[in-house]
């Protein structure tokens, strides 16, 4: 379909030249964060949307990645950029261990186990001050003053992540993941080792999430356990990004990431200063209402339920010729 290709291309082009047209650091920052969330949301989506393992503890990988980069500076006295190389493997190792513990559990037990493990990481990071400096956090001087560099790095990460997931899902592994999601026991009985493929999915997912964490350390220059291991701001945010955008779709999390970040900032700044100050205080409220609305009426997310969204537009313009179903 030509039009869908065109719109996708124009979006990509727009993203590519964004820092050039918009020199404001403030708006670059918003887009950088959105791109970072594309990575985290897509990674989560691979494990949860495609493989059906709903993790409530993705913050564990993000935090591990961030601290890997941070500790490079405080303990190894090398640049945090090395962290970008190390974060992936370290997260995968951690993920593997977590998988060994959690993959024997199903449904709500699995959800809660991942949540608890991420919380244990958070509490450990707070208490093990010799390693992490606890709540004082890790602060580094940033390498680049110009945000454009970070923007392009984030863009590359996001593109790489989505491409990797796309290739994986088109391969045999993709089929196995979905099979496990649909019915793990049936898949097992057909010879698909659930543990093995769930682990593969988890490894890829944690790799990119860890990478995002290391990126965060390099870009923001400051982390502490509350920020990078946060249940609400990282784990649950990842879930919402993927769900609102559309779980189980390639572009869903990307769309969700941009919507969530842009919406949050739009509200926080009272629509960029157009509306009175109290609107900014309601940003979290708007967020919550959006979550309720989307889950109630567009359960498969914006991309997943794109047909519904389209029909919403068309209702304003023309009467549908015939109702073809729900």
């Amino acid at each position, binding site marked *: 379909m030509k039009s869908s290709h065109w719109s996708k291309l124009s979006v990509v082009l727009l993203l590519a030249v964004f820092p050039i047209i*918009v020199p404001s650091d*403030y708006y670059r920052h918003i887009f950088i964060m959105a791109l970072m969330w594309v990575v985290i949301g897509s990674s989560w989506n691979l494990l949860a949307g495609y493989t059906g393992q709903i993790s409530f503890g993705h913050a564990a990988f993000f935090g591990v990645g961030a601290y890997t980069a941070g500790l490079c500076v405080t303990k190894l006295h090398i640049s945090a950029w090395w962290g970008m190389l190390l974060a992936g493997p370290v997260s995968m190792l951690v993920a593997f261990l977590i998988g060994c513990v959690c993959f024997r559990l199903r449904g709500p037990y699995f959800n809660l186990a991942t949540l608890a493990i991420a919380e244990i990481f958070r509490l450990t990071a*707070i208490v093990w001050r010799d390693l992490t400096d606890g709540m004082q956090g890790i602060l580094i001087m940033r390498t680049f003053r110009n945000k454009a560099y970070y923007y392009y790095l984030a863009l590359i990460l996001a593109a790489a992540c989505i491409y990797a997931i796309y290739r994986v899902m088109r391969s045999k592994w993709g089929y196995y993941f979905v099979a496990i999601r649909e019915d793990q026991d049936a898949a097992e009985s057909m010879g698909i080792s659930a543990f093995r493929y769930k682990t593969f999915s988890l490894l890829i997912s944690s790799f990119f999430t860890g990478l995002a964490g290391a990126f965060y350390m390099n870009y923001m220059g400051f982390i502490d356990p509350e*920020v990078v291991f946060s249940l609400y701001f990282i784990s649950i945010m990842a879930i919402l990004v993927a769900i609102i955008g559309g779980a189980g779709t390639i572009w869903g999390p990307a769309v969700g990431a941009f919507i969530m970040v842009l919406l949050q900032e739009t509200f926080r700044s009272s629509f960029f200063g157009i509306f009175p100050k109290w609107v900014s205080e309601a940003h979290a409220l708007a967020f919550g209402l959006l979550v309720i609305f989307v889950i109630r009426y567009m359960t498969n997310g914006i991309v997943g339920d794109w047909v519904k969204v389209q029909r919403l537009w068309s209702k304003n313009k023309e009467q549908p010729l015939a109702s073809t179903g729900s």
Partner: protein
Amino acid sequence: MKRTAIIPVALLFSLGMFISPVLAQEAVRVGVILPVTGEKAKFGEIEKKSFEMALEEINAAGGINGKKLEFLFEDDTGRPDVARSAAEKLITKDKVVMLGGGYGSSETFAVANVAQESGMPFLVATGSDNKITAQKWEYIFRINPPVSDYPKGLESFLTEVVKPQTAAILYENTNFGSSGQKEFQQTCDRLGIKVVMSEGYQSGGMDFKPLLVNVKKANPDLMYLISYVMDASLLMKQSMELRLTPKIFVGGGAGYTLPEFQKNAGKASDAVFSATLWYQTLPYPGAKEYFDKFGKKFGIETEYHGAEGYASAYVIADALKRAKSMKQDDVREALAATDMMTVFGPVKFIAYDKMTNQNKLPTYVVQWLDGKLELVWPKEVASKPYFYPVDWEKVWK
């Protein structure tokens, strides 16, 4: 067709991006970052009100060489990452000429880092961790004493009056708490006081009894506590419940000097000492007037945090008046040359103890007596004599 509807919406967003800078800017704008919401909101409230009160007075007296002074307040919600984003927004989007505020040490440090990177002058009002001014960051100035100076006023009180042999330190596991603990530990080592127990805790706890039970077992002469307000109240209330009776309770400022502490802890706050950085009866011009005016205007009592905010507003105005231009380096130069008297005390930025651009002031000791906070040490400036030794059974009846 429906997809093209997205285009006008996108345009609307992009429009928003360019509209805001066009808004008129005849005023001189300074960004002030404080915790308006969150755990430290009470402090943020007192400081914000103090900044606002000072702003009114400054503008009524002609502003900055005829131009109006404006404070753009940003809420850091008590989180350093939010503080950082707030600082970046003030610098890049609102294009302020300098920054002020900074309550929590972690938040202040995060803001200072951003400010230094951008060459934006930042006058710290409250953040007390030593390292904020120990990085040789020339754009960062601090009006208040660092946490290592907090117990200085206390030292003579301890050596002359209390003479404790042992001490226990309880502190919150944050920048403020940990640095406070480290400094007090050093003070104890210097004074020959044995620290029998030193433990950190997570703020927001419900039940401190397990911790306090251990303190009771260790039986120290002196208990030094570093907390923000809600933990302070619970710690004292639960110490009272357990009948934990060292010779003396001393708070390390922050939560222990707020009126909230007395309101929440009630009887348990009686006879508790605290280090403090300021008191309204100190011989600084305008100190008492500030205290009275604040009380009348807002109906609540102010204390040292408010004074820090109020004084730093005046220092900011003074520097901006003297600055050759509103360019960042000129403002910085003017700030560095500050030499004035404020309600908080004299302000002159010097280098000492590995810090730079730091104002040096003495500290004092206050005590809660009959539900009111009184300055008790040094004797020369005391508003009421100190109450020691304390018969806790009588106080806690």
